[in-house]
């Protein structure tokens, strides 16, 4: 135990709060190829999100001519799509695609 020249030492409590451990989940299996698949493009409201995904779509179309694309926009920042009135559309959209690319354009 260290004591400074003034003979003062402090035993201190932690300010860092406890947090319940969240159960970790794995991610879902990947698709084997993009060719012939339907790729979802999900954008948030930040300005760069849409142009970034447009470039991605353009490049992927060139590489995989038989892939198709489907867009979805969640325009409320930091609010889950499933927590808004667009929930049903979102669920339907997710069911209809094979994989999703999101851009946060942050």
């Amino acid at each position, binding site marked *: 135990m260290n004591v400074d020249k003034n*003979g003062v*030492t402090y035993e201190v409590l932690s300010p860092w709060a406890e947090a319940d451990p969240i159960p970790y989940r794995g991610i879902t299996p990947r698709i084997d190829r993009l060719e012939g698949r339907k790729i979802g493009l999900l954008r948030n409201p930040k300005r760069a999100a849409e142009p970034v995904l447009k470039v991605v779509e353009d490049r992927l179309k060139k590489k995989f001519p038989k892939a198709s694309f489907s867009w979805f926009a969640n325009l409320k920042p930091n609010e889950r799509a499933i927590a808004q009135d667009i929930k049903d559309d979102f669920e339907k959209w997710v069911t209809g695609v094979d994989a999703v690319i999101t851009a946060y354009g942050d």
Partner: protein
Amino acid sequence: MEQQSTAYEVLSPWAKADPISLHGLAPRLNKVDGKTIGLLCNNKRAAPLILEITEKLLKERFPTASISRFKSQTFSVSALEKEREGEFNDWINEVDAVIAAVGD
């Protein structure tokens, strides 16, 4: 647990300042009538209005007093307008007393 037996002996953060020579005020006037009263105005917005009203009241109350104005373009003539120091001194010589408005 703080062990309070010993304590911190601490230095003062409050700087020393050299004693400056203290000045008394200039002698006052025995009357206002017949004197030249200087009105000193800086460039804050309310100052001209304050002095305009002061001048009106002075003229009503002391009809034989005369008024001389000096307008500073900054907040403080002596601190910032070195180039007008001569003009300012001449003005001070002309007047018998000064009413200043800083209109802060």
